[in-house]
């Protein structure tokens, strides 16, 4: 069963008399274990897509199903609870709380949600992300890459079924960017999560199982050269 399903979804914004269709009617499904890239220039509607998929806003038409549950018509309070249970966000600007150290960032999640990652798995996660030594550091003491890795740890910590990453590599150099992508890839393949990465960085495509392109609000699956080359490299 698809973990994330969008059925005939569109989003229309009204600005005065004019209507802007930020996301044209589109259907989309993602299975567990898939790493999916959504690429497109800024203003193309990829953030709109991501926020609808993540339950941050409702579509104008259509339905959004997360793990089989229709969230389209839920109230914000219930959607917040779904986000907490099912979705991990890795945001462009780091989503860390400035006055909490790395360990406390994760403790905060324990305060608001039960059944988070077990201690053993968590240690594994720390090691794979290379942040085990940073537990006492505050976000302001971390480099951009370290912050992004902590953000990923935070997103994975609540055991979500879907991870939505908005430009997760924006502030990183190439090496770091590839590292981050590998981690997201691992999360998908090892733990059966759906990982969706929104980016305009085409270098990242090689890590992805599927690539969608979004232009002027129109989402289309891409069967590009990069895609094929990535398929080749997998075989």
């Amino acid at each position, binding site marked *: 069963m698809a973990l994330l399903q969008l059925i005939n979804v569109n989003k229309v914004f009204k600005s005065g008399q004019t209507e802007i269709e930020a996301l044209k009617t589109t259907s989309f499904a993602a299975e567990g274990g898939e790493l999916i890239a959504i690429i497109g220039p800024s203003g193309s509607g990829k*953030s*709109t897509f*991501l*926020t609808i998929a*993540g339950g*941050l*806003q409702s579509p104008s038409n259509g339905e959004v199903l997360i793990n089989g549950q229709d969230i389209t018509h839920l109230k914000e*309070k219930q959607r*917040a*609870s*779904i*986000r*907490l*249970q099912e*979705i991990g*966000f890795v*945001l*462009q*600007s780091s*989503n860390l*709380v*400035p*006055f*909490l150290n790395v360990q*406390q960032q994760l*403790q*905060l*999640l324990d*305060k*608001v*949600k039960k059944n988070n990652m077990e201690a053993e798995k968590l240690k594994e996660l720390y090691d794979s992300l290379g942040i085990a030594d940073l537990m006492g550091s*505050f976000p302001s003491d971390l480099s951009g890459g370290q912050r992004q890795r902590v953000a990923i740890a*935070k997103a994975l910590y609540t055991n979500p079924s879907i991870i939505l990453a*908005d430009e997760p590599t924006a502030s990183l150099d190439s090496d770091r960017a590839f590292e981050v992508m590998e981690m997201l890839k691992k999360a998908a393949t090892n733990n059966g999560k759906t990982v969706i990465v929104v980016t305009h960085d085409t270098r990242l495509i090689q890590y992805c199982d599927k690539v969608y392109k979004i232009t002027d609000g129109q989402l289309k699956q891409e069967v590009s050269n990069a895609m094929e080359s990535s398929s080749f490299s997998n075989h």
Partner: protein
Amino acid sequence: MFLAWNEMKNNKLRFSLIVGVLTLVSYLVFFLSGLANGLENLNKEAVVKWDADGIILTEESDINLPQSSMNPDEYDGNGASEYATLGQFNAIATSGEQKSPVAIFGISEDEFIMPDVTEGRAFKYTGEVVADDSLREEGFQIGDELKLSSVDETLTISGFTEDARFNASPVLYGSFETLQKVRFGDSAENRDYKVNGFVVRTGNLDEIEVADSLQVVPTQTFIEGMPGYSEQSLTLSFMIYFLFIISAVILAIFLYVLTIQKISIFGVMKAQGVSSGYLAKSVVAQTFLLALAGTIIGFVLTIATGYFLPAAVPVAFNYMDMLIYGAVLVFVSVLGALFSIQTIVKIDPLEAIGG
């Protein structure tokens, strides 16, 4: 609490400033309450000391003890479990360099309004008086001869008692003979004894029947009727109530600004699914801690200041009052935080993450 506490720990300067302001406000509240209490005591101490339920005065006195005058046999004690006759006369007492306004109470030694003598002995002969110990603090001593302003008589201090001021004047307790002499000087022997009132203890003031020319006044009404008493305590109470409002507003403003600064952080947390309720609770917890800290520090400062104040400042701390005021202060501060909660509820996680 987790979020609230860690934020304060990591932004010490910011939050110390808020605690500092709250400390000053609570310091002022406590000090004013002490002052209000002290000023009230200054007026009513001697009356409270009676531990009586009411006082019988003449109708035309307008509840003013010096203006009430009656014969000692005008009330026979009906309806009261105990009663005491009281004569009163105001004067200025002088002893060498020392000068003080005094209220002279003429009483019988066997009446319940006879004060406990804490130093020296009770009055025995005509002309002897037991004085309030605030006079001792002013430099008067046992055995001092007091010259009075209006008559040619002198009084001798035979002892001291505690907490006996009436209408801001220290009380001198003496016998009726003493009072008569002070009132009328040489002609005292030719005058009838007059008293100013009857102090009564009873289970029910309504049961006391008096002549039409007299009225039974409950003790509290009597105290509130003292010249300037209500005006003073109302003024100070108003100042205290205003400080409550001020502290609520100050805290509301501070927290509102802090909340505005944190909109993006809160937004990101909300995007991750942290509920508005959790964030709101965190802000309330923070406010509570800040207000509590400020109030406690203010309390300690007030008590500390109390020790260094000269006796002339009429400050008397009533810990029960202070406890209530402190609790109100914390409560209104938390009310101030509610203002920020609606901001938190309104934060759209979508905007916060730049969707």
